[in-house]
């Protein structure tokens, strides 16, 4: 099976403090550490495991600039067979649909049976995979936490409310967005990355993808981010004060009143 996995280089929100710049135009990025989007990493691991079972190859693709190369290389160190970078100044300022259009061009240059994305990334939109499927006119499923390859179809599980799992059968080629916890991604260390340090990663620009730069970027975007801000804190909780004993006593009174003590 030929699988393409879309990955994104994002600030590591766990290891960073996200602080908004004074003018609100962006977050402060100088001290940020970047890595592959966690959901995308699960997707790559899943793709590698599928190919280990049924054969084929995994191609990792990203839209970005030269900084993004480290992420593609890391996923190749993990076991992806090929990497692909889509880089063009015209791509900057795209909205989700613009990104999906770029990825569509890359998908159509190959013969893929399956395209995987992470369920969401740093902006929490979770949209690109679904839009890509719509542009390609392929079936789609989001929040996938189980994939079984059957004859000509995939049996998949989706994580839905209440921790339940919705089982579906989906025909190929299709696009799936992958939820965390689907597998346990293998470790990639410095050594693994060094091993793939000299592997060639092709870079394609708008022209090579057959895309009209005019339709992309801010001009083609229907949704634009205006600024970043931190909302003013609301009233919030009544903070109890005093010694531990006093606080505990106050709390007990409140709990009694609200029916919390039986």
């Amino acid at each position, binding site marked *: 099976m030929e699988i393409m996995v879309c990955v994104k280089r994002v*600030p590591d*929100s766990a290891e960073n403090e*996200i602080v908004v710049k004074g003018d609100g135009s962006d*977050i402060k990025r100088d001290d940020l550490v970047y890595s592959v989007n966690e959901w995308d990493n699960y997707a790559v691991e899943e793709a590698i495991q599928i190919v280990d079972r049924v054969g084929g190859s995994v191609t990792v693709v990203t839209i970005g600039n030269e900084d993004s190369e480290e992420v593609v290389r890391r996923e190749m160190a993990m076991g992806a067979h090929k990497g692909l970078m889509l880089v063009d100044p015209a791509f900057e300022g795209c909205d*989700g*649909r613009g990104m*999906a259009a770029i990825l569509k061009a890359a998908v159509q240059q190959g013969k893929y049976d399956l395209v995987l994305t992470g*369920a969401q990334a*740093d*902006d*929490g*939109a*979770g*949209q690109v995979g*679904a*839009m890509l499927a*719509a*542009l390609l006119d*392929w*079936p*789609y*499923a989001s*929040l996938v936490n189980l994939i079984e390859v059957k004859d000509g179809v995939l049996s998949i599980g*989706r*994580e*839905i*409310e*209440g*921790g*339940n*799992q*919705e*089982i*579906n*059968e*989906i025909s190929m080629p*299709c696009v799936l967005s992958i939820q965390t916890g689907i597998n346990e991604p293998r470790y990639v260390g410095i050594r693994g990355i060094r091993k793939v340090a000299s592997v060639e990663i092709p870079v394609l620009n708008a022209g090579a993808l057959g895309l009209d730069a005019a339709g992309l970027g801010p001009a083609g975007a*229907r*949704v*634009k*981010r*205006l*600024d*970043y801000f*931190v*909302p003013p804190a*609301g009233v*919030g*909780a*009544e*903070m109890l004060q005093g010694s*531990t004993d006093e*606080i*505990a*006593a106050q*709390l007990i009174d*409140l709990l009694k009143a609200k*029916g*919390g003590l*039986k």
Partner: protein
Amino acid sequence: MAAQVFAFILHKDGKADDSALELVAAAKKIFPDTPPIAIVTGAGAALDAVCQEMAAAYPQVWKFANEVLAYPNAEIIRPLLLKVLPRGGVLLLPQNTFGMDLGPGLSVKMDAAYVPDAVAIEGLDGATLKVVRQEFNGQVSTHLACDISKGAVISVRAGCFPAVEARSAGGLVVDKSADAGGLSARRRFVEVLQAEVGDVDITKEDVLVSVGRGIGDKENVPIADELAKAMGAVVSCSRPVVDAKWLEKSRQVGTSGKTVKPKVYLALGISGSFQHMGGLKGNPFIVAVNKNPKAPIFQVANVGVVADVLEFVPELTEKIKEAK
């Protein structure tokens, strides 16, 4: 020149989801004078019940009844909506596992804009809608400008808009089931596997003692057990605790866990992420204990204590036992 605005209604077992009544308020923020139309898909008597319920809150309800719609499959519903929604229309969805599945792809097919997970709608200026979203796991907020001249699909976060009171005055239920004929998709729903029930059903409890990452380690969970026992309550938790295997999944409160409606909720060492709070419904009395005074939970709790859970909770347990 307001376009038509629609709200997709999710329902289960004949009852509409809480989001149904919140979408009305969201719709009004966009087009204050345009009555929103509820779209309900499904089959059988359950569908009828929901349509009646929605008729009390929406001036117009479009009903689509067909066996293939009995379980909400986004891949089937998308082509249906594409057929029946007018050009330039605005569709509101709840931001949940269904909304994420349906919305983005639908917006592309409709050649409309897509706004995911809106937490606030500021208003319409000509054809530009200003919306507030969050990024980086809720650490920052952003203002978005969205060109809705060609229509829009907007998913709305739960609990961000007030649920309207359902009036008894009748809305019109329009049966459009004829349009739902001949639908097919390349994704077939098979079944739903229920999450394991486990030894305790937290969804039925009135008082919950909930632990988060702040409990530190599996060995400290008994500290919460002791408190729960003294209070006559039951222990629940947030997702990181389940991921770390300190408690079973059946104890997880949150959008990917269980939805609970207790009277009293103690959040111990829980930061208060949206995904966790999304599982807390009703209007419980929330007590938060956390050693980080800036934890988001203190925004939503009624009462807060800044303390180390491992130090404060055993003290509280002692005092409760003494008071008995």
